[in-house]
Each structure stands twice: as C-alpha cells, then as structure tokens.
C-alpha cells in the first residue's frame, strides 16, 4: 500500500492551507482517512486510545444491517415471482432483488454523500461517518418500486434538513433516515402506500395470478386482523413490505450483532419490545367482546412481527444521537416507542406504519426525558449525606 500512501503524500500539499485546492480539504481528508487510519498521536491527556472510532462504529452497524439487506433482496424477488405464480430458485429470487435494489442503494449513497461532501467543504468541517449508515437505512425503509428521483430527493432532504442545518452528525435531534422516509410518506403518499410493495414489472408471457393483492399486513390488520399472514410468515419475513423490514428474524440477528459489539443500546431494543408487548396486552384486556375482529384483539406478540416494528426498534430507535442518552432515559424512551406504536396502529388506520412516527415523536421528546432524569439525579445527589 506504499504507493497509495505516496500518491496521497504527493497531492496533499495542494489541499492544505495555502494550496491550490485548500477549500476542498474536508473532501480530501475524508478520502484520505477512509483509506488510512491517520498516523496521528495523542497530544495531551491519555497517551493511548481505544482502537474504536466512529468509522468502526458505523461499520459495525452496517454489518448488523447485512442480514436484513440480504433477506430483503431475496424477498423482493420472491414476492415478484409469487405475484406471477412463477417457480423460481433461491438464486433467481435473490438476483432479481439484487438488480432492483442496487440502484436504490447507489443513488442513496451517491446523492447523500455528495450533499455531505459539498456541505462539509462549504462549512469547512470534517466529513462525518454518519451517512455510511443512513445511506443504507434509507433504501431498506422504502418499497422496491420507489422511483429513483424520490430516493435522491429523500437523501438530500435528510442530509440537509435532518442533519447539516443543525451542525452535522451528533447535533441532529431526529433520526435522519426516518426523517427521509417520513418526508416521502407525507410528500408522495401515492408512491408510499397502496399496491406498491411488490415489483410487478411485466414478465414475458406471464400474468398476475388471480387474487393478487398488493396490500401489506398492516392494511389487512386495520380491516380484519384475522386476514393477516401467519405469525411464522411474518417472523421469517415472507410478506410484502419495504425492502429491509419484513423479516423479524433478520432484524434479531442484527440486534444480536449490535448488542454484542456494544454499538447499539440493548436497553432501547429490549424496552421497545417490552413496551409494545405491554400495550398490546393491555389493549387485549380492554378489547370489546362483541367485536371479535376489532384490532384490539390482535395477539400482543403480533405487534413484534408486523410491519417494520422490529426494524425500527433495532436499527432506528437505537441511533445514539437522537435517542435518550441517560440509562434510565433509554428505558422510558424505548417503552414509550413500543407503546405508542401499538396505540397508533390500533386506533389510527390512516398511519399503519406507526413505528416510524412513534420513533420520530420520541426523538423529539428524548431531550425532555433526559432532562427529567437529570433533574431526578440532581435531587438524589442533594439528598446524600
């Protein structure tokens, strides 16, 4: 790798103060530090540092996203072939999904990182690693049929309004990827709900099977929850939905990676699931006996399996920047996300994908939760001997 290092060394002076491309320094620095962990040494304070940095942290999250990504690609193909009633091998399914998903991911990364680079260069601050994860989260939360220009628009919106206007990664108060999805959800409802979940691009000589419906379980849930896919199908993810959200199993593998590496907060993940279960059980208790199809009767654990709940709880709620930051705050934050998700799903049919809205809502409330926890902490400190 010596020759790469030499190239970097030879062009570096042009980007440093006084060089021809001085203004482009943040962009150059981002590329340089991407290739080489800099040979920078500690200046004051501790003389050795933990090997983990933000790049490593973000890589761990990306690794945790791989199961949902792979399964999501396969499922895109599976649903497509299912709609046409075609026999397809696992590789066929995966390849179809891969071809359909890749452009969305490429556009999301290219546009988002582009905006991030331009913004960093304009403002003269280093390019942060946050978008490495956001750029993958956005495609996974979208239906495979989404037009690419919308992906680009979402990436621009989330980078600018979700992050950069507050000062970049670490300063934002809402999860940027979810903000992107919420933006598309409200700005282009026709593309984000209805019969859009499966790619039904025509297949030569094939017709859609009779009785094909593009409705997701969450829509079925609002009319009659008994019509939903089976619990096992929902757990493994053989259902329609956004690219990465369908498989609870894949999300749980991701959760395991996040928890073992210590990158994701296990408190948030566990409390989200507990909050949903508790609220589900409570609603079961109050459900009207004369309406056996009422959504309140849904078995509580179904809420873990339906829609994007697991995906949201594992990958979105755990974003350390927008979540509560105190230990106790994390529990409250997670429990409330779980509880609100169930309430919104059951009582507000207009927004079936309630986990997105619950997390964004609790992102807004997270500083308040922390404030209360800190005030309690101070009161307790004062009461000591």
């Amino acid at each position, binding site marked *: 790798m010596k020759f790469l290092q030499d190239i970097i060394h030879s062009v570096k002076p042009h980007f440093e103060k006084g060089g021809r491309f001085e203004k482009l320094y943040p962009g150059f620095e981002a590329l340089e530090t991407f290739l*080489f962990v800099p040979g920078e040494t500690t200046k004051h304070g501790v003389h050795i540092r933990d090997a983990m940095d933000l790049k490593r*942290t973000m890589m761990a999250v990306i690794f945790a996203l791989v199961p949902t990504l792979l399964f999501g690609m396969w499922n895109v193909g599976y649903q497509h072939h299912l709609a046409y009633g075609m026999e397809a091998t696992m590789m066929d399914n995966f390849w179809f999904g891969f071809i359909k998903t890749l452009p969305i991911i490429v556009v999301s990364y290219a546009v988002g990182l582009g905006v991030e680079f331009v913004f960093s260069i304009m403002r003269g601050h280093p390019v942060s690693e946050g978008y490495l994860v956001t750029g993958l989260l956005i495609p996974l939360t979208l239906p495979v049929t989404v037009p690419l220009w919308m992906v680009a628009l979402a990436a621009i919106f989330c980078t600018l309004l979700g992050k950069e206007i507050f000062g970049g990664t670490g300063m934002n108060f809402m999860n940027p990827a979810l903000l992107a999805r919420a933006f598309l959800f409200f700005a282009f409802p026709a593309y984000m709900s209805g019969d859009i979940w499966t790619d039904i691009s025509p297949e030569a000589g094939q017709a859609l099977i009779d009785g094909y419906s593009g409705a997701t379980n969450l829509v079925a849930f609002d009319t009659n929850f008994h019509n939903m896919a089976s619990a096992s199908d929902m757990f493994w993810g053989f259902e329609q939905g956004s690219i990465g959200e369908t498989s609870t199993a894949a999300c749980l593998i991701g959760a395991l990676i996040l928890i*073992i590496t210590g990158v994701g907060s296990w408190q948030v993940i566990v409390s989200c699931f507990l909050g949903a279960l508790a609220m589900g059980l409570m609603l079961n208790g109050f459900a009207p006996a004369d309406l056996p199809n009422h959504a309140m009767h849904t078995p509580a654990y179904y809420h873990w399996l339906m829609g994007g709940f697991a995906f949201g709880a594992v990958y979105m709620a755990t974003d*350390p920047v927008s979540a509560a930051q105190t230990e106790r705050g*994390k529990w409250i934050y997670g429990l409330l996300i779980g509880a609100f998700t169930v309430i919104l799903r059951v009582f507000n049919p207009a927004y079936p994908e309630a986990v997105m809205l619950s997390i964004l809502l609790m992102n807004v409330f997270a500083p308040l939760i922390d404030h209360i926890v800190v005030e309690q902490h101070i009161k307790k400190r004062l009461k000591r001997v």
Partner: protein
Amino acid sequence: MGKSISIRRGYNIKLEGAAEKTTSEIPVSDIIAIKPPDFPSVVPKLLVEPGAEVLAGQAIFFDKNRPNLRFTSPVSGEVAEIVRGEKRRILEIRILPDRGDTRYVEFPKGDPAKLGRGDILQRLQDSGCWNYIRQRPYSLIADPTDVPKAIFVSCFDSAPLAPDMRFVIGAEKENFLAGLKALQTLAHGHLHLSIHEQSKESISESDLTGLPTENTHRFSGPHPAGNVGIQIHHISPIQKGEVVWYVHPQDVVIIGRLFLEGRYRADRVVALTGSSVAHPQYYHVLPGQRMSDITGGRLTSTHSRIVQGNILTGQKSSADDFLSFNTNQITVIPEGDQPEFLGWLLPGFKKLSLSRTFFSWLLPDRKYKVDTNTHGEERAFVMTGQYDQVLPMNILPVFLLKAILARDIERMEQLGIYEVSEEDFALCEFVCTSKIDVQKIVAEGLEYIRTEG
C-alpha cells in the same frame, strides 16, 4: 472494620511491560532540577540565587499567593542555573549536587503520635513535606489553615502497569506507619485508608498494625478503584465548601522519615514500565534526577514516548527532562505515527478496545502492546453510555462535560464537579469513540470554577 466497597464499573487495561520486583540504585546525576510547573497554580518566588549553597531540606522558593508554602531542595549542593521560559516564567531550578555525602537541614526528631497538631503542621511546612499533602476539590497542594473533613490514603494503584505499592513501601514500613500517625493527628482521627481485597499489589491490613481499623476500607474491582477520588466518593463524598486531603503512600514514607530521622529525605522508588523498556523493574532515585539517567540504555527503541506517570494520566516527557516531584512510575511505549491502511475495516485481533467491535474481545487474557496512535479523528459526541461504563461514581459524565463546555457554574455544581478530578475521567477519555479530550475539559471546568465560582 471500615466499609467494604465493590467497584463494578471500570476497566483494567492489560499492557505488556509490567515491572519485575527488583530495585536498583541509580546514582545521583551530575545535575538535578526542581520544576515549579510540577505544582499547578503555584507562582514561584525565589529564595536563592545562582551560586548559592543549599542543604537538603532548605527552602529554595515559595508561593507568591500562599507564602507559607515553601519548596525545598532534595539535595545539598550549589544552585547552578535558573531556567526561564516565556514571560520569564521559572521552569527549572538546577542544582549541582555535592559529590560526597548529602548535607541535611536537621529538623527535630520525635514520635509523631506524641506530637500535637500544631507541631506537626509546623514541621511539615518547614521541611517542605507539606507539599505532598494535596486537597480535593481541585487537586492542589492543601492549605495548612484549612481543617479537612478527612485525609485519604489509597494503599493501592490500579492504573495500567502501576507500581506495586506493597513492594514499594516494603523496605520502609516503619516510616510509612510514622507518616500515617502524623496524618492521623492532622485529620483529627479521620484518616481513611483504602486497600484492595484481592490484589497482591495492595498494602494489606497486616501492614497497617497500630492504626485504628474502623477507617480501613476494603475495595474490590477494576481501575479506577485505586483512584483516591473514587474512594472519597464512596466513603465520604465532598459537598460544596468541604475540603478533603489526600497523600500518596510513597509521600507518607517521606513524611515518616522527617519525624523519625529528622531529615527531609526525598528519594523514592520509581517503576520503569512499558513495552518499550528492555527489562521493566524498579529504581531507587531522587526527584529532579535527569530522565536519561533512568531510561538511558534501557529502552528497546528510540522512537518511543516517555511518560512520567501511567499512560492514562501521566505527563509527556523526554530523556532531557527531569523527574517530577510526584512521579512514581515512568512508562515508555512506542509512538504510533504510522498510518494504517483501512485500519477501521480489519478484524483487529491485536487491537485493544473496550467495545467488542474488534475480534480481540475473544481473547480476554491477552496483554497488549499499545502505541500512541489516536485510532481515529475527533468528532462530536455520538455514542452514549460509554463513559458511564468506566466511571464508578454517581455522576452523569456527559452532562457534566456539557455543563463545563457551557461554563454553567450552577449546573456544574449540581452535577458534582467538586467530587471529580481529571484522573477520574481518564478512562472515559480512553474509551471515547469521538476522541474527545475529556481530561482537558474537566481540568478547564475545575479551573473555571476555582477562579470564577
């Protein structure tokens, strides 16, 4: 019996280069230096001129703001040179030591248990031994006019590669006990000693005969359990307006010598540790001695960093520097100024990390050879809960740091600034993913509240 306190949050950094338990003498250098910058917030006023003869134990400068703080020479000889820096700030007072035996200022001898508090105070100040007694909050030299709530001595050091306290004290148990008795009187009986229950490198109860046992507290758990600030927090937390004093065990020995021998004898045992040291072991040295006398010819690489203290809280030093007043340990580790290709992507079996993002977590007993690389660039706060894992105090570290950055004195007080010191946050700085200079922020906060609060 005192309290039994189990520390759960913390981390033992396992490094290569622990000192072997042998002590070698190092002869006095041809020149020694006393460094006023070793004493934060002291404004030195000289009492000697170049060319003057001094005895060991004779005052050579005092603090302009607190004239009763006098700083004495550890050797007898001739003042050679005053080294000044910017704005004529005094950096070093260099002394040519006598070739023959050291000539001492003779102080009265006496069993400290039989002396009154006033006598003890006076003798400590006259001899310069007072400067070994420091206070919390602010970690400065204690004010002799204060009456402390208590005095703390941590009888073990849990820092990476720290010296074995039991071994260091071993040869001078009597002086150690005499020093403790003097402190006992100074503290009006509130002298708290902390020992580690499992560690063999801790002074044990059997070494503390003749002292009341109700104030001997037993700790267990990882670093920073040995930090006196953590012990104070768990035994008798500091409230606003309160002052506690603390003394390092080696300094207790020096105080003990003053009473039993009637002399200010400042020689001490320093551990030379770290992966760049050929044969890590202990050395018997004088403060002010040239570093090259200690490190010269004993290092495996010239491209390494010499630190006075441990790698978490020590000061960067060099072979041309002189041993500081409070140094008990010298650590030498390789400099890490080589870029690493895609270093953030590799599996990392040899990388030390508290997180489990590197596969080295599968080998928990591994000892590491760590260099000074930062492993990444500074970023805004992103990860949460990291600091809490290594700070065993009832304190919300990130919120306290934010209050300091905002210079909000009321908030700092509410969140416990008086209880903390930079060294307690050293592990937080070590684990920080965003590579934030935590200790520097804490030091700024303490300085701000001391001068403005």
